[in-house]
């Protein structure tokens, strides 16, 4: 084995694995917190475990992993219970209830720490926030063949095993109880009435959140725990509309964040010519934030960019249809073409002058409109399209007057909007019934369909 690889396995692999496992376990269970809109619960739990740790230490007198874990998990469940009590009886919103509970419990932990166990629980703010990823070191044997021995594996940092177990627990929990979690998050009443008690399942979910939070926060710090409970799930939600794919995607995102965040933190500065590495969990959190931002912007269905493009296209369609409509009306008055300046006025400049200009270009590209010497007129294809728009407009006017009881001089603006809903899906619902006469309320003919 080359020294480079040996160094990587010794210094980088343990924290990278621990960080990634922490991300993965938080992300999987985070899906259900985000869906139930109680994501802050992870934040609350990761802070309020402090008194649990101190009390566990005071009772047992050791800092062994197991009593610490039990104390922390108990404190986590206590948090959940107190939040529920406050929410029910103090009549405050869930966020406020969580805020009150975790700040009080955290403060209680600090007091207990000062009073009793001060020397023995080494807990400083930096460690709580950012964890001790960088402190994990493994001294692996120098030959590949010796890796699989019990002795070697025992020297792998404890956090790696703990977090691997956390991933396994969460994975089994989510896969085995997927259907149950889905129904209880969507409709707790139905779940209970079908024999899946919401209180039991929510309690189970909270227990798993508490375990994952406790297991992760020692290694990666509470900042990363909170980010990982929310970011991958929320990012995945932007990318898919099914819970099953959301869970899978959130797991992929968490893994990518964990690995790439660690690599960027550990090696990124060196690539840029700096000397010191950056905090791995800090970098993972930042990567998660970037992923979240990107998916918010570029998600295929709900992304801001897609929505913006959709809106722009709709505005342009409206402007183009308004252009065709006003040319049609001009023809009815006997003008076969309109000056470009007049068109902008006639269409009311919907969406601003730019939209009108772009829409005119698009109409020309589609062969619906021709432009000659500063004047525009309808082509044969444009004639057909325009008639269809005007038909829609005048049918709506008739409908609003005859069936809706509006006065004839009140319906033009409404019809101006409704006329654009001509896609086949909406047509079935919006297509007005054929009025008795083919004359609209303003005594103009309705073009045949």
């Amino acid at each position: 084995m080359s020294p480079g690889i040996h160094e990587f396995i010794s210094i980088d692999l343990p924290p990278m694995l621990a960080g990634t496992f922490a991300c993965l376990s938080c992300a999987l269970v985070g899906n259900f917190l985000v869906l139930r809109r109680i994501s802050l619960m992870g934040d609350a739990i990761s802070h309020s475990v402090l008194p649990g740790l101190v009390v566990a230490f005071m009772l047992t007198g050791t800092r062994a992993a197991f009593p610490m874990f039990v104390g922390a998990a108990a404190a986590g469940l206590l948090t959940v219970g107190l939040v529920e009590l406050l929410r029910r009886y103090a009549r405050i919103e869930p966020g406020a209830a969580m805020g009150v509970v975790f700040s009080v419990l955290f403060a209680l932990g600090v007091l207990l720490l000062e009073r009793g166990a001060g020397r023995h629980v080494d807990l400083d703010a930096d460690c709580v926030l950012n964890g001790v990823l960088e402190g994990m070191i493994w001294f692996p044997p120098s030959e590949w063949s010796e890796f699989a021995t019990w002795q070697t594996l025992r020297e792998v940092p404890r956090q790696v095993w703990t977090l691997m177990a956390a991933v396994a627990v969460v994975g089994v929990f989510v896969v085995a109880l997927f259907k149950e979690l889905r129904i209880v998050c969507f409709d707790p009443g139905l779940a209970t009435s079908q024999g899946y008690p919401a209180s039991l399942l929510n309690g189970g979910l909270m227990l798993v959140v508490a375990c994952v939070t406790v297991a992760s926060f020692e290694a990666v710090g509470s900042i990363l725990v909170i980010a990982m409970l929310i970011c991958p799930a929320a990012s995945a939600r932007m990318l898919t509309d099914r819970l099953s794919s959301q869970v899978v995607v959130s797991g992929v995102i968490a893994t990518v964040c964990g690995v790439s965040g660690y690599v960027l933190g550990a090696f990124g500065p060196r690539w840029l010519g700096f000397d010191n590495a950056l905090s791995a969990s800090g970098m993972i959190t930042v990567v998660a934030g970037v992923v979240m931002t990107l998916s918010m912007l570029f998600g295929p269905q709900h992304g801001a960019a897609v929505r913006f493009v959709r809106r722009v296209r709709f505005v342009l369609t409206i402007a183009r249809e308004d252009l065709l409509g006003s040319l049609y009306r001009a023809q009815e008055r006997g003008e076969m073409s309109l000056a470009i300046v007049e068109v902008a006025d006639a269409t009311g400049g919907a969406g601003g002058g730019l939209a009108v200009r772009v829409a005119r270009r698009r109409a020309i590209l589609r062969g619906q409109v021709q432009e000659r010497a500063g004047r525009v007129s309808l082509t044969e294809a444009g004639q057909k399209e325009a008639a269809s728009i005007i038909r829609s407009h005048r049918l709506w006017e008739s409908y609003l007057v005859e069936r809706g009881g509006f006065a004839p001089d009140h319906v033009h603006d409404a019809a101006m909007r409704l006329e654009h809903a001509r896609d086949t899906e909406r047509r079935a619902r919006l297509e007005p019934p054929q009025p008795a006469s083919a004359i609209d309320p303003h005594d103009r003919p309705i073009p045949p369909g």
Partner: protein
Amino acid sequence: MTPQQLPPGARSLLAGRPEHSNLSPLSVHSMTVAYNRKPVLWDVDYDAPAGSLIAIVGPNGAGKSTFIKACLGLVPRASGVVEFWGQPYRAARSRVGYVPQREAVDWDFPVSALDVVCMGRYGRIGWLRPVTRGHRRAASVCLERVGLGGLAERQISQLSGGQQQRVFLARALAQEADLYFMDEPFAGVDAATERAIVDVLRELRSRGTTVICVHHDLQTVPQYFDHVMLINMRVVAAGAIGVAFTSENLQRTYGGRLTLLAEASEAVARAERGS
């Protein structure tokens, strides 16, 4: 042990009481419900006639939804016994369906219409078992029955309000229950959905199913339902439309609310004319 926690098959507590029947899909005896020690429902006694469509009517805050939730054990009862066909809820659960108010759930939830309908079958699927293809097929038949066959894969936020209500109805059908509780299925739906719901209710009745609906529109009570239960913190009156849906009972239920009263008396007058 409270009556709610009786093991399946336990002997009926109400069997010896002549005023209740073991054949009734729902027998409520002396049920009182309180939120934060404030009573919401007082001493409710009710026997639902089998195979009928029953409207629960009453002013806002009268405890109509609470009645349903207390029967199903979704809110705790301060006292009283509720039995389904002479059995406690636990034993009869698979025969009882529930349609909550549409606002009760998050319609942005990442599931398809078919997923939601499948949830109606979870009761018979059981813990830790996956939703099989057979259940999905049964669920899609239910979606077709409410006229949404083409929208099975649509994410639920992309459905209109009426379509969402119909998804809930399809989910109830998928439960294949013998007794349904529906909390305002007609609230804020379009005409097509209202017709679809009424058709489904009538079809259910023709198969002997009992449906208990919280209903707000007094005008349509005589048209859609056979029985009525008038609630205002307690049961003011209950029985067949012709007997219980009288202007006097409505006045006692809605006492003091003049606009509603006017509306109610008109509805009664129409019911009396039989139109």
